[in-house]
């Protein structure tokens, strides 16, 4: 008994040592590319080639950043903010509108409509890409920031409706019932009761959809052409054409595009993590 206990202790020590070693390896693997990006973004074009890629920069050299920021980066950023805000507002409002009857009303088509909306979660965007491209052209909004709004909203809606419906089902019914007796109709109920009560669900969705819309690439790439109308994920793409041989410059563009997320992570870590995994629902 004593011997076995000792054996177990040795075994567990060894397995802990292995686990810790692996954890350290995983830390390096996760963090090194990031360090590579940030370090090199401060280097001069030749400093990187002569000093090696892993060395910290000699000094905090902001010239790359200055050049990127004066080279149209602000425009991409502004476009991204605009597309994000408008898309997000529409998604949250429309999803809340849809989730309310699906969670609360008894009507014949309820199950069918819900299934129809939720089934859209599995649809690959590529099946819509060509028709949406044509539609955008014939509407005359090709190569404007308006082009991205519709597809962004449409592909964010199914999961948003799915999450909000289950959230609204969890809101206690008693409040509404008493309001209904007082003669409150369904429309007033939605704006005065349901929307405020659904705030926690809406804020989680805002983060989830916000991150996705902020990073959206395929539609932005297909539906816009000129740098002045493009969003942030394409800034890297366009800058690469300009500075393809200048790795530090690209790294500073990358660092700048990640910066908003880093700031969000520092100040609202728990909310961000929770929001980003909101999409992990059982299909």
């Amino acid at each position: 008994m004593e011997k076995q206990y000792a054996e177990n202790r040795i075994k567990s020590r060894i397995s802990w040592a292995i686990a810790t070693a692996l954890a350290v390896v995983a830390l390096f693997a996760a963090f090194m590319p990031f360090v590579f990006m940030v370090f090199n973004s401060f280097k001069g074009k030749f400093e990187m080639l002569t000093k090696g890629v892993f060395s910290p920069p000699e000094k905090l050299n902001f010239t790359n950043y200055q050049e990127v920021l004066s080279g149209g980066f602000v425009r991409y950023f502004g476009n991204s903010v605009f597309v994000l805000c408008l898309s997000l507002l529409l998604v949250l409002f429309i999803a809340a509108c849809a989730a309310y009857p699906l969670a609360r009303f008894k009507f014949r088509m309820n199950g069918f409509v819900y299934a129809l909306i939720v089934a859209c979660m599995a649809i690959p965007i590529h099946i819509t890409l060509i028709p949406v491209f044509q539609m955008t052209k014939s509407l005359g909004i090709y190569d404007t920031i308006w082009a991205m709004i519709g597809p962004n909203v449409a592909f964010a809606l199914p999961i948003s409706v799915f999450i909000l419906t289950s959230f609204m089902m969890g809101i206690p019914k008693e409040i509404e019932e008493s309001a209904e007796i007082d003669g409150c109709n369904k429309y007033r109920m939605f704006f005065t009761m349901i929307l405020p009560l659904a705030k926690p669900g809406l804020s989680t969705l805002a983060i989830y959809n916000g991150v996705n819309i902020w990073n959206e690439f395929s539609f932005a790439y297909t539906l816009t052409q000129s740098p002045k109308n493009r969003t942030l994920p394409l800034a890297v793409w366009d800058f690469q054409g300009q500075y393809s041989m200048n790795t530090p410059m690209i790294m500073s563009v990358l660092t700048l595009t990640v910066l908003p997320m880093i700031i969000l992570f520092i100040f609202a870590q728990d909310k961000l993590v929770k929001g980003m995994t909101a999409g992990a629902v059982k299909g």
Partner: protein
Amino acid sequence: MLERGMAYMKDKANSLGGRRRRSTNIAALVFLLPVLLILSVFIFYPIVDSFLISTYRWNGIAAEKTFVGISNWIKLVGDRDFWFAFRNNIIIMVMSIIIQIPIGLAEATFIEFVGKKGTVCKVLWFIPMLMSSVAIGFLFNYALAANGGMISAVSQLFGGGNIDLLGNKNTALMTVIFVIAWQFIPFYMVYCMAAYTNVSEDVYEASLIDGATKGQYFWRIALPLLMPSIKSAAILSMVGSLKYFDLIYVMTGGGPGTATELMATYMYKNAFAQFNMGYGSAIAGGMFILITLLSLVTMRAINGRKEEE
């Protein structure tokens, strides 16, 4: 269906309950109208339109379209490049499930066992998730570059030469798979951490009191309890891998040759680089059908097993 619904509503409208039901129906319609409108315009109509376009030969710009019937589809069924791309999708799918979920689970378990001290790990391990696919693609393009990349630098440290992982046909796909793993492991880590919160603290303490080691606790108690979450993680990973586009398009564009071609990149190239809208639509349609079929089969398999239990 709608007409019948209207007639039904008319019959019932006379009674008080009927009037109430009618106002509920109208309210439901008002609230659901925006979502149905948007989905119709940007998802339902485009799907139908894609299948229609797939019966034409068309460059997307000229007014004239040539109706070619199902010849695009016949071409697709016999198109080696498409099936090779599908094969790549399947490889990425299987490798993603094999690599990402176990490592994510291991990281979550480590954090679970270490407790508060694990916060540093938690923060650093999460970092890849802050970057978009496009940013990750570009970062690794440079980090893995033969000239001035990280891997080459390490290799030189040990006296080796430059290594071009992405430019080599034999290593490109595996390299891309590891970059995808780098991107998504944090997601499964957070996912498994959330799953762990459902395993009650009491079970953990009780098992330790009963003399179980942490290893025994993990394999015999925690893992079976986490299994349902792991299964749905696998479904998520599966559907995601079949739709994969951004990162690969940015990193390799499907190359070198067709080594990392995916259904989505193949479709994109045909439609928007060669302006073959008809064939591009057929590829997109094929991709849509394959994804739907695979998802249905998997769901059926997993739900069927649930019924047996």
